[in-house]
């Protein structure tokens, strides 16, 4: 196999791992909520098991090792020997996080993460506490834990244990590249084996059903082996075969006979039966080296296990699902597409939108009457274009669920770090947002969640004293609202201590000591650079980032952050984001005969400019006096170098918000319209232009610049503006 093909398979393994981790987290969340069923536990087990299987194929030993130990404990859970108590589920969550770390490390080919041993030990400790632990677990238990009482039950004297193994492969076993013969040989390597092949009475060697396994085996194994040793051989095939391992003396008891009776009663439902000519069949298939008709006829259960699912039992020839994905509850079919292709499509649709706008404009200019065929066709075209645009944007859209799941981990880790009990509740995690937005949201959201745990939620003692449950709840929700995505982080903590916030802001010189601030204004002080309320630097703070960084990151995405807090009840941060970064809501304005676009997200309000409202400061600086506020005033045309000084006459002023929370007023000649524009990069062919975020193409086919008001009104670029002569 070529290196490339191998790399590709490896890459798809890691993609699959992400999917498995997602279902693992989902199932753990269900268990955590106390709604777990056997199937939920199975999902958890299967996910870990599949990860282990894949990792084994790539020789990722550290990952296999970790997954194996986790799987061992999960097996106890699956067997019902371990209860999914809240404590246990919390440990499983931690183990899942570490499994994720291991996957990440394997993916980036880093050294495996050192963490995990304590959690694994704790998990295995649970297993020890359970009444029937597997002897294998003994290896991993730290000395000091009491496991002696369990030992006599399992440690049979060497050389005397005898096992009956009933093994019947499904089609999936062969399909996944495993081979029953090799498994039988491996069993023979453990000790003395007597193998009986079970052949259905009407064995038809028909090419049409050649891929459907018909044979099964009953193996009696004698030797110094534990059940775990045997299970290990079947490690990678447990979900693609019927397997039953029992001590030999159990096999001959009444239950097995009952099985025979059941088999006789409903022969159709039974995949296969014992056949006297099993030796011949086995010999013909060149399979097990040693066979014994005696064991086969000793009244062993004809079926190795009950049929796995009712639907399968109903079918005359039980077809086994090839993989867990083929199961009924599997997600809708998906394909993996190179992101470049999607982006190309997004670009082309952008062209289409522009083209359609141009066409519409020229048709209107041509004086076409309403309700003509051309106009009607054009209208339909516009609708189709919009649908295509929405559809293409949806391809890039992804549910926020993986992001939210990462946040659950942040909450777990952060709350442990500060000894608080915090639970993360998520809502609307199927809400879809552009992939790029999700990627760039991860850091600010992480910080806000940490912040909520660190500053929002109180310590258990204080919560109890306030009459709240000891466990705090952070609710993370996502929803679509008015063409934007609304993400809310809501905690049920103490709320913002406004008096303290005010004191700190005064102490840091951020506000004057006698400043009159509304509650909302006090809350917004949190977003100022250099503000941090943590009076002691915890493990969580001290990262050197404050809410100002969060706000800047959100603003860079075209988003807004709002804060609402009620003392004693909690604090809510709301983030409003555009659905995509490919289009932008903008206000189209005219300045000095140029058309420009101001992002709507940065506009606070628009107003008519009156000469009385302008106050001069010094030689050239001007401020706008609006409703008691003084806002720096800029003439957009002069600022951009399109004209020397502004001409007389009534103008419109646009108030914008800055990244740092401040405001600025821009004078424009006229506001044309408000519309969605397709963002076109400027820097690829030219480079960055100060004050300009990007460009777009308007309906007339002309390029219009999209302004970056924060950059434009920053105080520093003045020198750069003056130094360079104006464009012709």
């Amino acid at each position, binding site marked *: 196999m070529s290196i490339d093909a191998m790399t590709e398979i490896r890459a798809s393994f890691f993609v699959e791992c992400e999917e498995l981790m997602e279902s693992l987290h989902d199932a753990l969340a269900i268990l955590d909520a106390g709604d777990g069923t056997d199937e939920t536990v199975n999902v958890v087990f299967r996910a870990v098991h599949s990860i282990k299987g894949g990792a084994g194929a790539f020789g990722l030993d550290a990952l296999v090792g970790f997954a194996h130990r986790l799987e061992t404990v999960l097996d106890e859970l699956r067997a019902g020997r371990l209860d999914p108590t809240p404590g246990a589920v919390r440990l499983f969550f931690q183990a899942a996080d570490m499994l994720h770390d291991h996957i990440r490390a394997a993916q980036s080919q880093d050294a495996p993460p050192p963490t995990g041993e304590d959690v694994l030990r704790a998990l295995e400790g649970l297993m020890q506490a359970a009444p029937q632990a597997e002897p294998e677990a003994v290896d991993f238990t730290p000395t000091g834990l009491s496991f002696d009482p369990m030992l006599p039950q399992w440690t049979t004297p060497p050389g005397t244990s005898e096992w009956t193994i009933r093994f019947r492969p499904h089609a999936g076993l062969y399909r996944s590249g495993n081979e029953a013969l090799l498994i039988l040989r491996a069993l023979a390597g453990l000790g003395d084996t007597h193998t009986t092949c079970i052949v259905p009475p009407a064995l038809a060697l028909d090419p049409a059903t050649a891929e459907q396994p018909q044979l099964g085996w009953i193996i009696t194994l004698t030797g110094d082996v534990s059940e775990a040793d045997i299970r290990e051989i079947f490690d990678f095939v447990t979900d693609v075969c019927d397997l039953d391992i029992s001590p030999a003396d159990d096999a001959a008891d009444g239950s097995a006979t009952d099985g025979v009776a059941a088999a006789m009663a409903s022969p159709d439902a039974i995949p296969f039966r014992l056949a006297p000519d099993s030796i011949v069949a086995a010999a013909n298939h060149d399979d097990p080296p040693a066979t014994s008709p005696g064991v086969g006829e000793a009244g062993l259960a004809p079926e190795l296990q009950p049929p796995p699912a009712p639907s399968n039992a109903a079918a005359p020839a039980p077809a086994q699902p090839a993989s867990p994905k083929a199961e009924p509850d599997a997600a809708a079919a998906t394909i993996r597409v190179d992101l470049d292709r999607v982006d190309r499509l997004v*670009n082309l649709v*952008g*062209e289409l939108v*522009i083209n359609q706008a141009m066409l519409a404009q020229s048709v209107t200019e041509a004086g076409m009457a309403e309700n003509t065929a051309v106009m009607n066709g054009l209208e339909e075209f516009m609708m189709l274009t919009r649908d295509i645009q929405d559809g293409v944007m949806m391809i890039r859209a992804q549910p926020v669920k993986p992001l939210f799941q990462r946040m659950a981990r942040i909450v777990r880790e952060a709350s442990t770090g500060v000894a608080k009990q915090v639970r993360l509740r998520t809502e609307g995690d199927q809400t879809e947002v552009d992939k790029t937005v999700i990627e760039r949201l991860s850091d600010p959201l992480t910080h806000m969640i940490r912040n909520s745990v660190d500053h929002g939620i109180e310590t258990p003692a204080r919560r109890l004293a306030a009459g709240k449950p000891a466990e705090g709840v952070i609710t993370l929700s996502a929803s679509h609202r008015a063409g934007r995505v609304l993400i809310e982080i809501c905690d049920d903590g103490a709320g913002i201590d406004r008096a303290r916030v005010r004191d700190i802001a005064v102490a840091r010189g951020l506000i004057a000591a006698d400043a009159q601030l509304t509650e909302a204004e006090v809350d917004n002080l949190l977003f100022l650079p250099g503000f941090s309320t943590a009076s002691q630097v915890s493990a969580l703070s001290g990262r050197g980032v404050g809410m100002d960084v969060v706000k800047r990151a959100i603003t860079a995405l075209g988003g807004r952050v709002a804060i609402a807090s009620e003392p004693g009840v909690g604090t809510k941060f709301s983030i409003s984001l555009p659905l995509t970064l490919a289009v932008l809501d903008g206000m189209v304005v005219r300045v000095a005969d*140029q*058309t420009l676009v101001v992002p709507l997200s940065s506009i606070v309000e628009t107003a008519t400019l009156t000469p009385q409202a302008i106050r001069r400061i010094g030689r050239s600086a001007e401020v706008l006096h609006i409703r008691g506020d003084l806002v720096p005033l800029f003439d957009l045309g002069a*600022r*951009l*170098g*399109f004209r020397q000084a502004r001409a007389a006459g009534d103008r419109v002023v646009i108030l914008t918000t800055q990244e740092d929370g401040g405001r600025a007023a821009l004078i424009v000649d006229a506001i044309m319209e408000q519309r969605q524009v397709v963002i*076109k*990069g*400027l*820097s690829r*062919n*030219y*480079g*960055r*232009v*100060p*004050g*300009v975020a990007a*460009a777009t*193409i308007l309906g007339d*086919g*002309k*390029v*219009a*610049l999209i302004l970056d008001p924060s950059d434009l009104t920053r105080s520093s*670029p003045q020198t*750069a*503006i003056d130094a*360079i*002569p*104006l*464009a*012709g």
Partner: protein
Amino acid sequence: MTENLSTAAQEIELLAFRLGEQEYCLDIMSVREIRGWTSATPLPFSPAHVKGVINLRGTVLPVIDLAVRLGMPPVRADERNVIIVVSVNGHTAGLLVDAVSDILSIATDQLQPPPDLAGDLESSCISALTLVGQRLIRVLQLGAVLPARPAEAA
């Protein structure tokens, strides 16, 4: 024919165009297309020779007034002028010139290095000179006239 390659000079094809009274040319392999003049959207804070940006089928294309870049009076922007769209190293730009005049096949040994005019802005933009009949053709050093690429790939 093939054995002559080593002795006979290779020929390159050049697109010749007029800038005022002078004639320039550039390697035809870097020319993407030639299109009529459309008014450009001016870019703030840009050097004088950057005319602005135009829409080239959805791509935002910077346009350079080549005459200003070479220190001559600006090209009068009207319908007779053309924009030569060139692409160098995946970097696309439009060059505003007076008119396209010719496509020339010139043997490489006919190209002379430009005289050393130290300190002259435009000399760095000329890679070679050649005579076609009585016409002096200046071969443009394309990389030198295109706008400087940003250091950061933002």
